[in-house]
Structures are given as structure tokens and as C-alpha cells.
């Protein structure tokens, strides 16, 4: 099987693929250092905290808080031309201290967005009309379990 084409991610990429392999099973996972119990994000071959190489992709509750976002109107890559406007976001994850996850926010009106809003992952197929295939990805939406 050939790797998905840009801008799709490649679950076979050694450093980052664990994120996408977890997402394929509707899991949100980050590399956790077995030695110092610290999440290492973005992935690196060795833990920047202790230098250890015992990093394990560890699933966490896919819930967190909106850190910041941008409503993107201009398609900076041709692949996004039929997706704008969309909300590109950075969220912090409750169960993974120190992790800031870049994601896409869905099911929210931009005028309702606020820093600090509770958000929860919804796993959806990521597709682009410019390339074949799809990769399951954690998008986030306002947490339906919380009434704002």
C-alpha cells in the first residue's frame, strides 16, 4: 500500500504515525515517557526531559479546552480550496499535560467560539478532493456533555 498523498498524513511515518494509527481506532494518543511519566509532544526519538527512549503511544480521554483558533478563509494550499472557511484550532488535552494539539474545530459557529471552551474529539475521515484516499482524524467540537 502506498502512503497517502500530501496533504493527507502518513500513518506509516515512523515518528508521528502512532498518532494516526490510534486515530484509526478512534483513540487519541500521545507518546508518554516511561521513565519520567511525561508526554513528549511533538514526538521526538528520545524524551527531551530525561533522554529516555521508552516512549509509548498512550491513549487519553479525547477531551480538552480550546486554547486558540483561526477561521481560515484563504486556501493556502489548493487542497483546501473547497474546504474554506474552516476553523483551525489549538486545544489542550485534559489527560495529557503539556500537550497542545493542532486540530480542526467543527459543529460550532465561529461567533460562539471562546478561549477556554470545553471541546471533545469526534473522529472523522479526513479527505481532500485533490488526492485519493482518506485518513481517520480527531476533529474537535464543543463538548456536548457540557452546556455552556
Amino acid at each position, binding site marked *: 500500500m502506498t502512503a497517502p498523498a500530501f496533504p493527507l498524513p502518513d500513518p506509516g511515518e515512523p515518528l508521528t504515525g502512532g498518532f*494516526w494509527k490510534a486515530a484509526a481506532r478512534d483513540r487519541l494518543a500521545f507518546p508518554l515517557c516511561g521513565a519520567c511519566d511525561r508526554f513528549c509532544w511533538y514526538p521526538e526519538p528520545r524524551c527531551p526531559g530525561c533522554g529516555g527512549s521508552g516512549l509509548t503511544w498512550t491513549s487519553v480521554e479525547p477531551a480538552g479546552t480550546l486554547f486558540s483558533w*483561526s*477561521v481560515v*478563509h484563504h486556501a493556502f494550499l489548493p487542497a483546501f480550496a473547497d474546504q474554506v472557511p474552516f476553523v483551525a484550532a489549538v486545544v489542550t488535552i485534559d489527560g495529557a499535560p503539556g500537550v497542545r494539539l*493542532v486540530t480542526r474545530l467543527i459543529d460550532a459557529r*465561529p461567533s460562539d467560539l471562546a478561549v477556554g471552551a470545553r471541546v471533545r474529539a469526534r473522529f472523522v475521515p479526513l479527505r481532500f478532493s485533490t488526492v485519493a484516499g482518506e485518513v481517520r482524524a480527531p476533529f474537535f467540537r464543543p463538548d456536548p456533555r457540557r452546556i455552556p
Partner: protein
Amino acid sequence: MNRTLDWGRAEPLGGLAGGVAIVGIGEAAHSRASGRTPTEMAGEAAAAAIADAGLTPADIDGVMAHPAFPGQLHADAFRARFGSTGPLWESPLGGGMVWAGTAPHAAARALADGSARHILNSFAVAWATQRSSMTGGPGQSHAQKITKRQLEVPFGWFPQPVYFATIARRHMHEFGTTVEQLGSVAVTTRRHANLTPSAVMRDRRLDLRDYLASPPVAEPFRKEDCSLISDGAAAYVMTTPERARDLRAPVVEVAGVGLGTSRTGGHWAQQPAFTTTPQVFAGPAAFAMAGIRPVDVDVLAVYDPFTIVTLMQIEDLGFCGKGEAGPLAGSGALAHDAGGIPTNTHGGLLSHSYVLGIAHVTELVRQLRGQAGAQVASAEIAVYGGYTGPQASALVLRRAR
């Protein structure tokens, strides 16, 4: 918000050896897509800077250019352009961005140890031409980095305008910065460009109403919040303060240099101090070396790929408290004639040219000589704030008495 300063450091640069002065400045025409090559434009800027110093190409025995950008005026290109055959000291510590601010530090060492007598730093880009042929541009190198390509691009968090729009949104949340305050940076900077003959946007007016009516690119940014993409080049010639006194231009001495580094590298999403630049490390180091405080500075030029970066650097250099640059800009204090902190008086990357900061330095030299378009009255001390993301530099320039 991260108020502790454990996320980066000031690099231990040491002093300026026997000193260094900027004695010649030059620029190639700044333009939209022009078909010119970087080497051609860098050569044009170099020729102008050498002539401005009252020197000839044969007097230049040192060249500085950055290896990461194609077509720069390295030693071979310098020889090919000017037909010079003598020994040429060469350094990769030159160019634009942070290096436009730190090149004088490396030059001072080379002048002191006799490696060179007259050193040229230059930088050129042809990104407007390259963009029109889809062969390059500021986003392309970012798309090659594995972590960005695999973990940011798929979600559409790419390229720089989206990173900095997200930073701006967070700054608005933390400090109450408004869209109108971002707009005031764009408007004031444009007004400076309107007064500067070499600015790409010299004939294009912009007021706050135009700004607010402009469609969003990546909210909260409109296109006026984002730097131009242009072709162009700039260069400056350095020598010792002693030799500078024998040359024809008013002497502009380097009084301080600082370099700050964030340990999180080039991932904006993971920057612990999300709304702060490594200028918090570079600025104080440069000011200490120069023996000045922010209040002593007459004119400022900061690397401004986006309006929010102007605000962050003004804060991080200590011209106001953290989070206070929005109201400062909104009050009009960045204008060349407002008696506040005149900033980017040539129009910056936003409205002058996207030559990555080296034209900020040539503008400051013009200011200290009293030759700028948007001239600040009797400017004696000028500061450049360079920025790449992972690093920031601060350069303090002083008109010799």
C-alpha cells in the same frame, strides 16, 4: 500565560571587540514579481552600499550572507559580480531576519582580528517572482518538516498567516487586544511607506475604515495584517569606528547586540510562552551592552511578518508592559511624528518590502543620518528587533557625536 523565563535564553555573545560602524547602505528596487534573480538584486544593493560608503568594490575584503537562502552574495558571487581578485573573508552569519541584527557582532570580531577591513552584509529574495511560478516562498520549507507536514498541515493549520492569526487571537484573549489595534499597526506602517520612495506600497493609501472593510484571510487577520511578498535586496557595509570617521557618511556605530533563543524551536503551536517572542532575552542583553534603556530609543524597527509580531516585539523589548502594545499602537504612538515610539518608519515588511528585515536596518541608518522619508526629529539611538520564531535579535545603533 507564561511569565517565567525558563523557556529560552540569551546567547552569551560577549562584547563588540574593537567596535563596528555601518558606513554604507544600499537597496535594489523593491517590487512585485520582477523576473530578477536574488544574486542580481544582491549585487545591485551591494554596489549601492559600497558607493554610498565612498568605497570601491576592491575595498571590500569581507562578505556575509546566509547559507539557507538561494542565490545570496557569497564570496564567489561577489567576485563574479565585481571582478575582485583579492582575499575575501567570508561568513555565513549574515543576511536578514535575526542575522540582519547579529551580523555586526561577527563583523566586529573579524575587524578586530584583522580578517577584514570593510565587510559587506547583504540579503535578497525573489519570492514574488518564485510565487508566480509556484517554485518557492515562505511556506514551502515549512511543509517539508515532518512534524508540521504530519501533524499540522492535514488540519489546515498552515502556513505562517494561520500560526500568527492563532497567536493574535490568544493575545486578544489574554490582554484585550482588539482588531482595531491590529489595524492601527497596519495603517501607521502604511503611512510610513507612503512617505518612503522605495516602498512597494508608497502609492497605496490605507485608513482604518479601509482596513476594517477588507475581507478576512485567516481571522483575525486581513491581508493588511500580513507582510508583502516582494522581490528586492538590501546591503550594508561595516568597518571600524576609526576608519568610519575617514569616510564620507555620518558615522553610525553599533552600540549593542543581543540574541535570544527559545528552546522549543520552530513549532509555534508548542511555544510555552505563546504570545511572547525570544526578544525578552535578546532585547535586555543588547540594551545592557549599549548601556541604554528603552526610554532612550528614538526610533525602532521590528521584523513584522504580521501586525501581531510588531505588538509582541514592542512589548518584549520593554517599550511597554506585556499586553500593553495594542492600546499604545491604537493611540497612534508608533507614528514617526507622534513623539511616542516611532516604529517601522519605512513601512516594514507589511508595506515597504519583504526583504526579511535587512531593509529595516538600512532604514535605521537613514534615520540616524537624518535622511529618511518619514524622518524622526533628531534621532540618535535606533533599535532593530529581528525575529525568526525560535530566535530573536536586537541591534542598537547610535549616531556618533
